């Protein structure tokens, strides 16, 4: 949407049913058929049911992260898009690169599954005796043919993809539900079958982690829904609903089907001498089929049909998912732009589909799928992990800008649990396939190489990027030097504000960073940001002329969609020690204390912050300090001491309950610099204690007192409703004296803020 030219877009044709079925189709693939027998073998009958239940829970937590992010950023690209916004273009390219590979390889695995099961069935009824090729070669040929068919279906259009996917998925889901329901009915009518669950966990609880890792592949797939962001009707509403619904349906179905598999064989059946769970487990991958064939009439043919439905719908969904990632990479110039070309006739990204098809076919023809599929699993786990980190970071950084269609409860509990579990499962996969742990990093390394040689230089700026327009550095900054950033917003007030900050900068012998953020409206392409540059540049030049002779000064002009995010990023990037911003005036805005920019900066910037209201380089002889709470005391006294004239009187007002926090002498013993400043200026401090009862009259006391002082320093405290305030914001507007608002951050806040 950046260039003012007419562009082709994907058509919005998929509704809630289509995309839910798409997610279900990708999940109920080959994983569950192979997983049940093996799980029963490793962890026993009860453990197998528990395995699918717990995996469903982890999948639900990750689906909630996907749902929240997709509702706020409903564009094709999925994890790639989220990483772009959360971490920037490097990580997002790698995320997209991994997702493309993982989905494509999963597609070739599903094509193989279809081929193997279909040919085995035909071989079983004697229909393949005339075929001159070996079974292995036949499997590859059929895999390529079925992949070709579904590539064509995907090329034909979104609605066709959705409709075909929905058709196949309905078939397989209904079959699976039928198995589950039959199992429950059979168990109720013949309760002796419940004895198949004895012993419930024959090999102990620890084995559950093993089976969870093995069967997690059966829960990969809901992420395909996020790829449909550009093609879904009412995406903010339908994407999260479809993700959560598909994970819920699939988990309940898996639990029921696993239960049905276990009760499907009656104890004492002729030919079965061992316990039923052992008998099912001994068939490993075929265990599910062997068990179910005893449950339903014509079990074998029905099972083959189910596998055909499952593998083809999963294949359809993976082609869709992989090609949309390639499309998004091309759209953002991370890969050459022809990847994003859309067919005028079918409205589908035909080159992205063709390149995805090439990977699927090549892998299906030439590579052993078992280890490649494990590599895909590792990459999916890494991707999910990344998405769970993204949801935390994006909420922290962009919650003021994004429109959310879904907000998860108890944030960030669920993403954190999912991260821990996904790390555990991905580490466990080392034991499953060492080759996968070589292939996966190799693919990622190729991605890093491609990013360096192509994507880094060509990638388009995202609407959420912060771009540096001009940057000048006066002198190289010494390591460990105190850094003060002055954010200039209004060119007219730039010089008075810098005059006021001069005392602080020179007292701290600080390196001064001047920052001017240019906000580019959403309607204007970021490429036209230079049109907004001129006024900011004038202010910066004026201030630099004033400060450069006495202090080392650097300046930056940046543009972005949100000023607050621009300032916060600059603070983190340049490792600023103190941020000084101007008071925005009496902004009466619902839900905000000082307006969205200042509120967001003081809430999220990991740095001590000062807000200046009408402060100048005037000689202040009487100062009033009201720190508000203990956290601001140190910084308030320090700033008061710096701004005060020699032999000035500094009155500190505080409540009795905070007395221990407010001891000047204790402060002087820990801060030698402050101590010598106080001695040098011969400052006099007077402590005024307010009683709890004075709280009610605080308004009158503060306004009455402030009339006697040249400068008032107020501490900012956080209110229950999350807005920032000094006890009540109205005081600041009423006080007609210069005011400095002080907000000191804690060490923990700084560390967390820098990480997030």
């Amino acid at each position, binding site marked *: 949407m950046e260039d003012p030219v007419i562009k082709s877009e994907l058509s919005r044709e998929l509704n809630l049913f289509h995309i839910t079925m798409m997610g279900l189709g990708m999940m109920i693939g080959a994983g569950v058929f192979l997983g049940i027998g093996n799980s029963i073998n490793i962890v026993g009958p009860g453990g197998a049911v528990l395995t699918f239940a717990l995996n469903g829970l982890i999948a639900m937590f990750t689906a909630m992260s996907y749902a929240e992010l997709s509702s706020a950023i409903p564009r094709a690209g999925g994890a790639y898009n989220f990483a772009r916004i959360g971490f920037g273009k490097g990580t997002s390219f790698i995320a997209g690169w991994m997702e493309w590979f993982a989905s494509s390889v999963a597609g070739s695995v599903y094509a193989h599954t279809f081929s193997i099961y279909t040919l085995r069935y035909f071989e079983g009824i004697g229909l393949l005796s005339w075929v001159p090729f070996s079974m292995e070669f036949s499997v590859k040929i059929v895999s390529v043919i079925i992949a070709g068919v579904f590539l064509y279906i995907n090329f034909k259009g979104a609605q066709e993809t959705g409709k075909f996917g929905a058709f196949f998925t309905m078939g397989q889901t209904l079959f699976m539900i039928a198995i589950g329901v039959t199992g429950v009915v059979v168990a109720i009518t013949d309760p002796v079958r419940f004895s198949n669950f004895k012993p419930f966990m024959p090999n102990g609880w620890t084995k559950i982690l093993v089976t969870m890792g093995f069967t997690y592949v059966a829960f990969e797939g809901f992420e395909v829904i996020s790829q449909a962001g550009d093609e879904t009707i009412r995406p903010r509403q339908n994407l999260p609903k479809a993700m959560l619904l598909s994970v819920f349906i699939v988990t309940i179905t898996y639990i029921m089907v696993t239960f049905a598999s276990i009760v499907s064989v009656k104890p004492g059946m002729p030919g079965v001498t061992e316990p039923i769970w052992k008998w099912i487990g001994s068939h490993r991958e075929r265990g599910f089929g062997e068990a179910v064939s005893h449950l339903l009439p014509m079990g074998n043919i029905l099972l083959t049909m189910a596998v055909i439905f499952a593998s083809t719908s999963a294949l359809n969904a993976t082609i869709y998912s992989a090609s949309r990632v390639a499309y998004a990479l091309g759209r953002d110039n991370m890969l050459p732009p022809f990847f994003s070309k859309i067919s005028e006739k079918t409205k589908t990204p035909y080159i992205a589909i063709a390149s995805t098809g090439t990977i699927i076919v090549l892998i299906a023809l030439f590579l052993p799928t078992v280890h490649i599929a494990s590599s895909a699993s590792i990459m999916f786990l890494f991707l999910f992990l990344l998405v769970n980190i993204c949801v935390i970071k994006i909420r922290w950084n962009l919650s003021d800008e994004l429109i*959310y*269609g879904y907000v998860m409860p108890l944030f960030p509990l669920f993403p954190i649990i999912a991260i821990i579990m996904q790390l555990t499962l991905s580490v466990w996969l080392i034991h499953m396939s060492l080759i996968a742990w070589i292939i996966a990093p190799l693919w990622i390394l190729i991605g890093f190489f491609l990013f360096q040689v192509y994507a880094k230089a060509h990638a388009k700026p995202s609407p959420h990027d912060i771009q540096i327009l001009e940057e000048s550095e006066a002198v190289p900054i010494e390591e460990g030097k105190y850094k003060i950033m002055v954010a200039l917003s209004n060119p007219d007030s730039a010089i008075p504000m810098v005059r006021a900050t001069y005392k602080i900068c020179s007292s701290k012998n600080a390196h001064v960073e001047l920052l001017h953020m240019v906000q580019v409206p959403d309607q204007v392409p970021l490429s036209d940001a230079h049109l907004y540059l001129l006024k900011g540049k004038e202010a910066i030049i004026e201030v630099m002329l004033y400060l450069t002779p006495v202090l080392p000064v650097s300046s930056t002009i940046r543009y972005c969609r949100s000023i607050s995010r621009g300032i916060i990023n600059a603070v983190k990037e340049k490792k600023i020690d103190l941020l000084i911003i101007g008071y925005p005036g009496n902004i009466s805005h619902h*839900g905000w204390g000082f307006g969205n920019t200042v509120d967001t900066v003081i809430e999220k910037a990991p740095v001590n912050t000062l807000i200046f209201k009408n402060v100048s380089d005037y000689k202040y002889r009487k100062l009033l300090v009201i720190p508000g709470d203990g956290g601001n005391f140190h910084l308030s006294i320090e700033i008061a001491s710096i701004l005060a004239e020699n032999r000035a009187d500094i009155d500190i007002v505080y409540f009795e309950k905070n007395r221990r926090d407010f001891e000047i002498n204790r402060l002087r013993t820990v801060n030698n610099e402050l101590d010598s400043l106080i001695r040098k200026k011969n400052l006099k401090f007077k402590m005024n204690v307010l009683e709890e009862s004075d709280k009610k009259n605080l308004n009158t006391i503060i306004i009455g007192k402030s009339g006697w002082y040249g400068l008032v320093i107020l501490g900012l405290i956080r209110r229950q409703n999350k807005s920032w305030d000094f006890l009540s914001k109205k005081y600041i507007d009423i006080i007609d004296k210069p005011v400095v608002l002080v907000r000191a951050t804690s060490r923990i806040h700084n560390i967390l803020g820098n990480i997030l």
Partner: protein
Amino acid sequence: MDIHTLIGIFAILVVIFILTTLLVWSIHSINKLNKTNKTLREIIKEKKIKGKRNGRSGN
């Protein structure tokens, strides 16, 4: 029925309960949220104000 079986059945039931609760809560929340376009801050703010009106300010 041994203790492992009891714990196992209980765990499965708890998982189903959590999944159902999360799904129902989420669908309800999505339907409610999508009636208006709001940023997260505005959503949280509105909840707090509503809480205060109902006498659950937490102060």
